[in-house]
């Protein structure tokens, strides 16, 4: 019984990490309907940025993350401004294929720069610290911090969305692009800012990815898939839905792994496909496609 409780807790905590992968994707997906196939690789890119700052300048990974955030914001803004805004439009193919090409470029660029070796962000004692809950049950501090960060990110993004002028512009362009333009919104600038914010979130995700497990330049696509599963399960445009989606994937994976370690990833995918068949628009959709 306690055993299963432990599995549930682990699954929810893992879900926090997946929600962090997914939050940035959900943001840009909700605002501009852009399916960014390079999102996973951008997270890995951010992880290498943190690693570089931490090793070359000797910073603590948390401080390195803070420094990497503005850089990733600028990179996201520039990427959207130079490349992706040109690809967006009525046609489905250009954004998909441009980001697919980008994914290949980032992966191989990272391979060239950092080789295929597995890396890890080191934090020292806090990595393995845990809180005793009694009865043989303990929660790792880092996984708890991951879930806490995911909740904080979703809270902050929702505040931004519903309490600020920028958020109003985000919602307006999401709901009706043409009317928003009539109201004087420069949608290309809005999109670039949104991508910048998505990259800041990706940087936070990268920190916890790098602490939790090894990473190398090729793991991006798998993270992208988990993130997308969370977004689609949650429903278009709902950040709380994305958090719930992440937790569902996390739970499915830990339960799958408990039955048979080889079934971990498979169980997550199956959970996703079941939701797709039953509720193709996700569990908590906010916006129309």
């Amino acid at each position: 019984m306690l055993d299963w409780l432990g599995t549930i807790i682990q699954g929810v905590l893992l879900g926090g990490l997946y929600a962090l992968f997914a939050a940035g994707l959900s943001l840009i997906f909700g605002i501009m309907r852009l399916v960014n196939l390079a999102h996973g690789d951008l997270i890995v890119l951010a992880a290498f940025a943190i690693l570089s700052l931490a090793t070359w300048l000797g910073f603590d990974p948390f401080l390195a993350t803070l420094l990497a955030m503005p850089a990733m914001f600028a990179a996201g803004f520039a990427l959207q401004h130079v490349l992706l805004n040109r690809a967006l439009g009525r046609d489905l193919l250009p954004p998909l294929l441009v980001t697919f090409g980008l994914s290949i470029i980032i992966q191989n660029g990272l391979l060239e720069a950092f080789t295929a070796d597995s890396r890890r962000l080191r934090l020292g004692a806090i990595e393995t610290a845990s809180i005793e809950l009694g009865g043989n049950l303990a929660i790792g501090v880092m996984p708890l911090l991951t879930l806490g960060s995911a909740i904080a990110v979703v809270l902050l993004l929702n505040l931004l969305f519903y309490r600020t002028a920028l958020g109003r512009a985000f919602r307006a362009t999401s709901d009706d692009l043409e009317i928003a333009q009539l109201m004087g919104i420069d949608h290309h600038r809005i999109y670039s800012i949104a991508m910048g914010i998505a990259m800041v979130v990706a940087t936070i995700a990268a920190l916890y990815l790098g602490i939790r497990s090894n990473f190398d330049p090729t793991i991006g696509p798998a993270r992208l898939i988990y993130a997308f599963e969370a977004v689609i399960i949650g429903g278009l445009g709902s950040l709380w839905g994305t958090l719930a989606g992440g937790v569902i994937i996390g739970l499915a994976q830990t339960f799958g792994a408990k039955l048979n370690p080889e079934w971990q990833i498979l169980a997550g995918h199956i959970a996703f496909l079941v939701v797709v068949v039953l509720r193709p628009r996700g569990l908590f959709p906010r916006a129309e496609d």
Partner: protein
Amino acid sequence: MPNGDENQLIELAQYRIETKTRASAILALAGVALVLIFAVRGLIQDLIFVFYMLALAQCWNLLAGYAGLVSVGQQAFVGLGGYLLFALTIGAGIDPIAAVVLSGLIAAVFAVPTAFVVFRLRGPYFAIGSWVVAEVYRLVFAQFKQLGGGTGTSLPPSATNEIFGIEWVKEMFEVRSPAARDIITYWIALALAAGAPLLVYLVLRSRCGLALFAIRDSEATAESAGVDSFRAKLGVYVLVAAATGMIGALIYLQKARISPDAAFSVLDWSAYVIFIVIIGGVGTIEGPIVGVIVFYAMQHYLADFGTWYLILLGAVAIVIMLFAPKGIWGYVAQRYRVALFPVQRMLVRPHE
């Protein structure tokens, strides 16, 4: 004396709809010469590679370019075909050539339930959904211990030594078994590479093709005119799965070694294929042919540069998508008005 309106009507009646062009007739002859190439073994293996990539590109192009089903998960059917070939030849002792055909048919059977899952998703969601399904296939096939599990397995020579027609080829060309196997594989690859555009061509010239064009232009209008868009798309999806499964079976007949990571590789069977179609020209039958030639040339001369080659490939695809979204062939066709595989319905005024 007819008035203006009637005049226009009469003029309109003089037009007829034609799909044949002069260039298309010439093309039919060009293919024949390829059957006779069997000299150098290295050349044969390169051509087999070109042929199966071309066939895969044609299949993806039919899905994405014509039916609007942008899939990033066709590796599901390549891997499925490959594994079915291994299962049928090793497990059931079926002749490899029959197994290639059978693998395609069984892949089509698998495609039906797969379609009912992924068709719940539209547009970009469909792309991701199809990728997830391919991952599910990969993870499931890694569980079959009889087929080597996660590390994969090899096709024993005994399974292919008695391949249909091998004795005849050995006598005819005075070669040993491995070379004879390559020649037979080459012929199958040639048949698939020639068959794939033919299949696309026939589909597009059929009623179903007309329905697809209508759906592509406006799904709502097409449906209100009585086009069953779900059925048209399902038909194309299953047909493409069958063809892709056969190609996958052929690929792994030649490679003679299979593993889940290679057989369900998104890079090899989706990324490269998509690049071929984009570079050549999406939504044309000629595009993949041009694309595969460019792709092969790049691979041949630049593959030694490894990561830089892939970076270049990605960059070329992005540049083409942004600045020449119709690809190389799209540009040529627009400029010079040629079509090797005419599938457009053109209005032609007969000569008086």
